[in-house]
């Protein structure tokens, strides 16, 4: 009985912690498949959290807040895309600037709106949707299928994006832009447009991830509450080998690792919790080194295109 409770608590926490990572990482997967690495993801997440919070407060609806959060995340990715894709600037530098800018601007907006010393906001939160039948499965049902709708978005997007990426001609064009942009161009793919749309889509999902943090997970907003999730999501993409299905699994694995450390601490087990936090990163490094399957980044990843002469 006690073990059953602990198991359910563990699974629930894993899903709760994994969902925002999965959302952001799914978007980044599409972005990276097009040959663009957006490490400004963190900026999109925090913008999504604030946009979601402000939207939900203004409209009283958490659902509207999630949508506005997505728009805010996309706007931040738009800045990145304009510079890194439009002007062909270095993607890593631009992404870093966008992250720092996102954290700074959200802080400034929050302080301007809620006072310099802050207000603990109590935001409208997304209701859980209980999936009939599935949520009654013992042990697995309520952790997986009695969740806010953003969780189901992850379940749905995994297979949808997989199909789109590997079974449609648009998906092929996107991958071509990321593997061999010159050849793709010769075949008539509008590489810059594809990359820009991919980056905006990544920003949209990162914004939804941030809004989920504020409106489905914590019910509040605080400066810096994204707390590095954008960077973890980039590691998740690597561990998931740029494959939407595996990316969802990898995100849940990262979620499980941090859920485990909180449970171990709550159950008073005296193990260094940092070890469990480090575990997924060790696996990510192993994936990069080729020890956990073959992880090959898109060939043209992070390379500005067209090359300047």
């Amino acid at each position, binding site marked *: 009985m006690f073990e059953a409770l602990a198991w359910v*608590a563990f699974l629930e926490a894993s899903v709760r912690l994994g969902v925002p990572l999965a959302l952001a990482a799914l978007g980044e997967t599409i972005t990276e498949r097009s040959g663009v690495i957006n490490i400004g993801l963190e900026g999109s997440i925090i913008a999504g959290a604030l946009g979601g919070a402000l939207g939900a407060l203004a409209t009283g609806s958490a659902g509207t807040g999630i949508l506005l959060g997505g728009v805010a995340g996309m706007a931040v990715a738009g800045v990145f895309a304009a510079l890194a894709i439009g*002007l062909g*600037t270095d993607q890593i530098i631009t992404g870093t600037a966008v992250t720092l800018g996102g954290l700074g601007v959200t802080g*400034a907006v*929050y302080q301007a709106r809620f006072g*310099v010393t802050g207000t603990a906001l109590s935001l409208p939160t997304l209701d859980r949707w209980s999936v009939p039948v599935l949520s009654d499965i013992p042990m697995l049902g309520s952790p997986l299928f009695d969740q806010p709708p953003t969780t189901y978005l992850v379940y749905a997007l995994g297979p949808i994006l997989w199909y789109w990426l590997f079974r449609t001609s648009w998906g092929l064009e996107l991958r071509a832009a990321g593997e061999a942009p010159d050849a793709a161009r010769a075949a008539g793919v509008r590489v810059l447009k594809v990359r820009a749309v991919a980056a905006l889509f990544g920003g949209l999902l990162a914004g939804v991830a941030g809004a989920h943090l504020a409106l489905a997970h914590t*019910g509040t907003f605080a400066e*810096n509450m994204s707390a590095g999730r954008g960077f973890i999501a980039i590691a998740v993409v690597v561990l998931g080998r740029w494959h939407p299905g595996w990316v969802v699994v990898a995100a849940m694995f990262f979620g499980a690792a941090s859920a485990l450390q909180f449970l171990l601490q709550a159950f008073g087990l005296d193990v260094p919790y940092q070890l469990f936090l480090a575990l997924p990163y060790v696996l990510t490094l192993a994936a990069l080194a080729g020890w956990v399957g073959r992880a090959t980044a898109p060939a043209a990843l992070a390379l500005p295109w067209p090359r300047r002469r």
Partner: protein
Amino acid sequence: MNRIVRLLAATSAWVAVTGCGGDGGGSRGGDDEFRVALLTSGPVSDAGWYAGAYDGLMMVRDSMRARVSHQQTRTPAEFDEAFRAYGTDGYDLVFAHGFEYQDAAERAAEQFPDMTIVVSGGGRVRDNLVPLIFRLEEASYLAGMMAGGMSESGIVGMVGGVEIPPAQGTFRAFEAGAWAIDPDIEVLEAFIGNWDDVGAAKEAAVAQLRRGADVLIHNTDAASFGVFQAVREAVEAGDRAWAIGMNRDQNNIAAEVTLGSAVIKIPQAFLEAARAWETGGLRGAPLYPGSGDGVIEFVVNPAVRRRLPPELLQRLTTASAEIRAGTRNVPRVPFVEGESVN
């Protein structure tokens, strides 16, 4: 092209570092002007530890007509940069609000002998480097008594940021207070590894509530919102749970589920330190503001006071008086090297 990127990066970095505060004093006034600066490594919008420091800076500005500046610095490299900027600019007094500043502060104190640096929770002493050690454990002990008295499950929990002396000190005292009421009470402890991650703090709190804890205290910054939220949701779901605030009066964050707050009146402590600086009394020795000075206090939440057992409140009042009189022993952890505790 590259110029645009560099400009953007520089602008964003500046925005991030200053938090776009707009509170930086012009700092180019006459030489007789009293210039005071505050460094925080997190946002001052945390309604807690950093917010109190910001209030303190404003109080020094208003009461002593000082020119003030605030910077948010994230990394040790930025700590050094900020101290250097203030030192070069002729600042008289810098409040570095956190244990994490002490290494950089020591270097800066050597480099700028005319600038006095006060490090909250610091551990190094020089003529112009003064640790400001809040005896927050005195209020945290009372919070522990409150938790011990209000827990029905016999389990209470603590959610902390990073395991540093200021956090450990409050947690050891909290435990001691809980055990003073009920020696059999179980005290859970979790650290989330940073101070701002609301989601992580909430999960740590949920894990403790699941484990049966029914009173939770925190020692984090903005992440504390996650602890209050977890308790609020547990109560909404029909469970019995209470939260206790820390660092600042947080009784109104979740007024219906909060028992009280272990409060540092940071503004008052800052103002007293600044006044001591003015009279030359802020040199070469740590400051230890505590409940005897009225800087540290456990504030019972007025919104729930009538739901609390009167005999528990009476015990808290008695213990509080004993702590001020020095007749009740509250555990401490050493902050300053070579400092004797108890």
